[in-house]
């Protein structure tokens, strides 16, 4: 707590002659801004691991059985055969770890961990989180869990290989890698809950004087609602994981029916009598809301970025807030749409279809309000704005492809095909990850005190945007053709053979997409140390974080704050400039206007005098 109260200037560019030890400052820090940076750096490392796994998957699908170029022979013998080609065993591990890492160690830590931590205290005018120590624990559980998740690499049987959904009995009769995966996810769940409790408390109790709930920027609203979903859903996942762990390790039978025929495992101690579908209900009760955990903060960030760079108030602010609340509520009652073909009573399919169709409504409301925000704006296409604009368009595609799956009869065909893979990547990459890019560039000046390279940022955006579509759009067509998810070699099936050129096209795009992310890392990494110094408010934005120095010191703000306005008063006729910081008092506005008028008058007189 003393650390949080210290007003010492810190940051890489600042003087290092302060009383905090290196360990306390950079490693076991309780400062929300340092924790946000820790989340960011760790998650970007995992982004590259998960991305590399995806490229191995793509290589195998485009060129089944062919050796991986350049590095194939260098990979361990448990992964590749003598020729250096991916083995079927490693392939199932790859697809499992790609999904698990990207969801639990990349998207959630970036959106919730990084932006939640960085933005909440700064945007509500607080000096830190409500529970800084809890915050530190929340971070440190995450890299430990991430490494543990992949720990199966060192064990017999390799990493977890039952898919990120880990359906038992497959996951209940699996290797030690699966057990490690369960433990890792359990820890990540704890990390999420600790973070969420912190966010809720902070938003409710630590807002600056004068700041009402409806003065909160959308990013804070979104993370706040997300935190509520996390506290509702994650304990259910934890209970399911505990049961799966016991099935795996202690031979209980929560998810295993009687007399399973498993030659590779001693089943004599497993009594049976369990129900495999129970896992799916419990898992999706968390994991469907988790999809909203991964998109709502992105929607918040994008709303802020769109409004700032359109120089216009966010269209329908309250409707946007209520839409987020509606999505969060409906998101809890749609989990069964993952189970239409699971053997669940088809009557439930009907009810879950109706709730799923209804959840498209608040998503539509958000899209229309984003369009409304841009209408008659004065848009500036900076890198964060480009990424935010792409988010909206990609989210529309992801939303529309969702209707196909929501319709139960169509889902009969496209369930567990590449249509689903295409859909989820439009939502989680086209949606969440573009929002992450938007947010990273938007807050980079505040986070580091330096500007990123605009030209590199735009290059990164355009390459990513084009190859992203080249990678994931054709997957919808593969799905229409019936190509199943998670198959090692599509050429086994005659009806999939015509799709091989399309698989190659996807893989080429995916390679470029993957390597283009080095541009992002180079841009952020180089600019962090060598970039141009950033001003306090480089985007001329209204929200409170831009009133703090760049980068903000411990305790964040160098003067007391009072909030007078909502977060989106851009281009107000009352003000001289095209923005109105939330802290500007009515007297200050009046004074600025008087000052401006006097100057205008003087200028007019001067010109009249000259004539």
């Amino acid at each position, binding site marked *: 707590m003393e650390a949080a109260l210290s007003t010492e200037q810190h940051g890489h560019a600042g003087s290092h002659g302060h009383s905090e030890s290196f360990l306390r400052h950079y490693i076991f820090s309780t400062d929300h801004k340092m924790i946000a940076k820790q989340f960011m750096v760790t998650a970007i490392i995992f982004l590259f691991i998960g991305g590399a796994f995806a490229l191995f998957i793509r290589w195998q699908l485009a060129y089944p059985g062919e050796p991986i170029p350049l590095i194939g022979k260098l990979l361990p013998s448990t992964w590749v055969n003598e020729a250096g080609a991916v083995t079927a065993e490693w392939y199932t591990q790859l697809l499992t770890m790609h999904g698990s890492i990207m969801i639990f160690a990349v998207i959630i830590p970036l959106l919730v961990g990084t932006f939640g931590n960085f933005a909440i205290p700064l945007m509500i005018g607080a000096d830190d989180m409500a529970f800084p120590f809890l915050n530190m624990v929340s971070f440190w559980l995450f890299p430990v869990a991430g490494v543990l998740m992949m720990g199966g690499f060192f064990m017999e049987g390799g990493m977890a290989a039952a898919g990120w959904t880990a359906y038992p009995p497959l996951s209940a009769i699996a290797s030690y890698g699966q057990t490690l995966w369960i433990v890792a996810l359990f820890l990540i769940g704890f990390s999420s809950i600790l973070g969420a409790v912190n966010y809720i408390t902070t938003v409710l109790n630590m807002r600056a004087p004068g700041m009402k709930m409806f003065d909160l920027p959308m990013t804070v609203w979104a993370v706040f609602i997300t935190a509520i979903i996390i506290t509702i859903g994650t304990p259910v996942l934890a209970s399911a994981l505990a049961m799966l762990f016991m099935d795996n390790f202690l031979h209980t039978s929560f998810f295993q029916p009687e007399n399973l025929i498993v030659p590779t495992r001693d089943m004599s101690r497993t009594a049976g009598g369990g129900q495999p579908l129970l896992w799916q209900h419990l898992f999706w009760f968390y994991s469907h809301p988790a999809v909203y955990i991964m998109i709502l903060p992105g929607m918040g960030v994008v709303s802020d970025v769109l409004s700032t760079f359109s120089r216009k108030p966010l269209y329908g602010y309250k409707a946007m807030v209520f839409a987020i609340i509606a999505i969060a509520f409906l998101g809890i009652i749609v989990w069964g749409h993952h189970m239409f073909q699971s053997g669940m009573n088809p009557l439930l399919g009907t009810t879950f279809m109706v709730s799923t169709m209804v959840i498209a409504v608040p998503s539509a409301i958000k899209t229309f309000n984003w369009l409304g925000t841009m209408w008659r704006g*004065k848009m500036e296409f900076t890198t964060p704005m480009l990424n935010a604009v792409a988010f909206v368009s990609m989210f529309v595609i992801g939303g529309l492809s969702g209707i196909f799956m929501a319709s139960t009869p169509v889902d009969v065909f496209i369930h567990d095909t590449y249509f689903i893979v295409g859909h989820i990547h439009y939502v989680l990459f086209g949606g969440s990850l573009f929002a992450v890019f938007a947010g990273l560039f938007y807050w980079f000046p505040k986070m580091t005190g330096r500007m990123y390279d605009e030209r590199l940022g735009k290059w990164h955006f355009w390459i990513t945007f084009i190859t992203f579509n080249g990678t994931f759009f054709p997957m919808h067509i593969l799905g229409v053709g019936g190509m199943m998810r998670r*198959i090692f070699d599509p050429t086994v099936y005659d009806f999939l053979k015509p799709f091989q050129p399309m698989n190659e096209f996807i893989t080429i795009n995916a390679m470029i997409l993957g390597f283009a992310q080095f541009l992002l890392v180079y841009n952020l990494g180089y600019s962090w140390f060598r970039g141009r110094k950033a001003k306090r408010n480089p985007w001329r934005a209204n929200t409170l974080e831009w009133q703090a120095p760049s980068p903000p010191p411990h305790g964040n703000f160098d003067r007391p704050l009072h909030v007078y306005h909502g977060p989106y008063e851009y281009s107000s006729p009352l003000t001289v400039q095209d923005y109105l910081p939330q802290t500007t008092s009515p007297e200050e506005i009046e004074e600025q206007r008087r000052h401006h008028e006097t100057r205008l008058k003087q200028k007019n007189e001067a010109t009249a005098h000259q004539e």
Partner: protein
Amino acid sequence: MLDWLPENVSVFGEGVDHLFSLIYYISIAIFVIVNAIYIAFIIRYRRKRKGEKAYHYHGNNLLEFSWTALPFALFLFLAFYSDGIWEDIKYADKTPNPDLVVEVMGQTYLWHFRYPGSDGIFGRRDIKFISTTNPFGVDPEDPNGKDDLTTINSMTIPVNKTVLVRLSSMDVIHSFFLPNMRVKQDAVPGQWVDVWFNSTKTGEYEIACAELCGSGHYLMRAVLDVQAQKDFDTWVDEQYSNVLASLAAAPAQTNE
């Protein structure tokens, strides 16, 4: 894009494909309209001069209401329209009377098929009896089970007949996927699920597993052979005589 769909040869597949194309065209329409507006805004409302102000406007409740109500009506319509077809495909009380019942058992990584034999009655089964040599768990005491036909990775059915598949698994979850029949149903160990279809065209079609079931998941392929009724009858007779031959040899085995 819908040209990529595998050929449909199923009675209810037409309804599925029709719904598919309906949603497809609605989506395309929404996508084109939204993105046309979007791109028009991007071109029209760029900032051209420094310091110029945008339109200060917070929103319009009538618009908010209409773009809530319209999608709501559209999505509810889609839900109820879809539900009619869904009920026909999956609801037990709407399943037509089957002409043939086939039991299907998934095992990593192959499919077992079982026909009731000449007496038309399946032998009694119990989960206790399931083993690698008795994948369906047929009670060895039950005489009705003696003449049951079983095949591996090959399913033969008559054309234009309602076939009821009774589906389960003996180890992990599999998914019984017939692309040309628009059929997909998970096979869950410990429970039997019914799924029906009616093929309108003879020929060989592929059966795939659509649920990750291990590293050999991709190899779990079977063939569906749809035959004319008389060819099917010949096939059954052939298979049945094989069973009789093995039954004749059976007493010797039990004595051992």
